[in-house]
């Protein structure tokens, strides 16, 4: 099983605070982490490698400091890592990002599977995984929370997907691209040996020139069909909570039920 994992470095939003005056995010000093969903993707790939052999390669597109995320992935056990970093990639929307990643995937050589997190916690789009699958013309299986069976010889995989109404069990032919949800596994911590190995590892940086068959007009801001016109804070919720107090629990519950009834949502 040759598996490629696409990861994104994101700000650790558990540490993001909102500036009460301007309503904007205060990102100063906020540490960057691997997108949590991507850690599930990485863990799943490592488990498949342990079971079926092969290698795990990790790709990330981002600024030069995204190399830290790749080093962490190597410390967890990935075999190889590649950083896509070039000013020409700046301003990429999901289409251009998927296009760029797909060209990088091709450059890494033959693969059986690509695994991505279902979405990144900063952009929240969930579109890059399907975009990469579309660019490469392979089957996509999104929102996977369990791999039921993998048959490398037969070239088939059976997964469970988490949908609104329940779990869908799908069989597909390899190669496939999976996007995974949180419940699929519990990611491991990097081992000491892994950290040492990762610190010494050579992580190549690929620029637009390195993925040369890619059409330069389809990269970065120029290659992106969408454009952000404004960014603002969401409207705050009006007013403060009405705190309900009463002599007894039953009396308080009665008042609350009355309030809810008066809002005509039941």
């Amino acid at each position: 099983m040759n598996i490629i994992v696409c990861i994104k470095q994101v700000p650790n939003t558990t540490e993001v605070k909102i500036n009460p005056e301007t309503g904007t995010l205060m990102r100063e000093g906020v540490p960057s982490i691997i997108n949590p969903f991507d850690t599930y993707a990485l863990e799943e790939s490592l488990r498949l490698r342990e079971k079926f052999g092969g290698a795990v390669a990790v790709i990330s597109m981002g600024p030069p400091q995204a190399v830290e995320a790749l080093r962490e992935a190597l410390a967890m056990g990935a075999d190889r890592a590649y950083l896509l970093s070039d000013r020409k990639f700046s301003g990429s929307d999901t289409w251009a990002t998927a296009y760029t990643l797909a060209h990088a995937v091709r450059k890494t050589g033959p693969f059986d599977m690509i695994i991505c997190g279902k979405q990144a916690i900063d952009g929240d789009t969930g579109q890059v995984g399907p975009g990469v699958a579309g660019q490469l013309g392979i089957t996509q299986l999104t929102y996977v929370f369990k791999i039921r069976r993998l048959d490398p010889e037969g070239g088939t995989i059976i997964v469970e997907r988490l949908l609104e109404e329940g779990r869908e069990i799908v069989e597909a032919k390899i190669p496939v691209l999976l996007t995974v949800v949180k419940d699929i596994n519990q990611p491991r911590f990097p081992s000491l040996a892994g950290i040492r190995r990762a610190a010494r590892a050579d992580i190549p940086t690929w620029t637009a020139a390195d993925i040369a068959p890619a059409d330069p007009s389809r990269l970065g801001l120029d290659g992106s069909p969408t454009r952000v016109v404004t960014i603002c804070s969401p409207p705050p919720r009006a007013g403060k909570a009405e705190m309900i107090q009463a002599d007894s629990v039953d009396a308080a519950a009665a008042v609350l039920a009355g309030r809810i009834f008066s809002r005509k949502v039941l």
Partner: protein
Amino acid sequence: MPLLKIDKDECAGCGACIDACPFGAIVMVGDKVEVSEQCTGCGACVDICPMAALSLPERAQETSEDLASYQGVWVWIEQFRGEARGISWEMMGQGRRLADARRTSLTACVLGRNARQIADEAVTFGADRVFLADHPELAEYRTAPYAGILSGLVRRYRPEIFILGASSRGRDLAGSVATELYTGLTADCTGLDIDPDSGLLRQTRPAFGGNIMATIICPNRRPQMCTVRHRVFETPAPDPDRRGQIIEINPALGKEPIASRVVDFIMEEGEVNLADARIIVSGGRGVGGPEGFEPIRRLAEVLGGAVGASRSAVDAGWIPYAHQVGQTGRTVRPDLYIACGISGAIQHLAGMITARIIVAINKNPEAPIFGVADYGIVGDLFEIVPALTEQFKKRLGGKR
């Protein structure tokens, strides 16, 4: 090298751009600002600068495509087991408004098996025209055949706007179709309107777990595609007397085997369908264990609602992940959200802050959940929730 250009001679060092930047990419160095590699070229800072010292490179204009030849608003009608999903009718209501604003027609795309009655329904919900692809291979949603058929229809009939519900299937499908067509796709919108000057679709969506709202356009490619969250737009009232054209298309399926196959479907029992729920009762760390969800379930049952949970309750193994509300779970938008024993971490708030009415029940009067709630009670959820359940039982009487 970041995209943003700063004219150092003009910069007054006021720092307005630092506050405006959603990515923390601008920092003060001495008495001037500098931009780091974190810059994504989003442009949030450009108009904020009182000295007009900030600029982004102009984009090349698309000239090869005749954008004006793309007309009409399209909606994909999602079906599951032969029935249309409610989110699709919400899309039809908004699609109708956009089509009227653009003085154009509304088209529904129905793919399925024996789906004629869904096509008829789409007309009652506002479609002027329905494309109906009825084929045994389309009984269950699968990405490849669905995306292939829709991409083919778009290439032939050239819609200006294409809207899909942001369900799991909708997001799966939209990503595939937009990739194939090389057009812009905006995920998970919570607002759509037409810019009166340019006629472009303005697509507003939350990012950073709901901490910022971004408005996005697709100026040079067509169709302008987006997915829209559940329960943002009202379901329109169907009009049984409405007339529309239903065009059957014969998809070229069955020649080549489709690379995936749905082998089974396990319906979630009970009250998990959070996306569609009008009422959600959620439990957090305060419920203390799996059995602590019992009073929560009973309240949900009396209200006819779904059961949600915070991440800590899910991570503790008290309730399955399918119930998780928040950044790494589901984003919900019910009319009523009752948070029981949930402190209100920013990641949880991201998933439920747009609920119409939020009720918080928590022991800790300082819990952040009270900051976003409409009504709050400080106290023990194991006393309050059963008391509340009794009150609702009394008031709802025979109605439920």
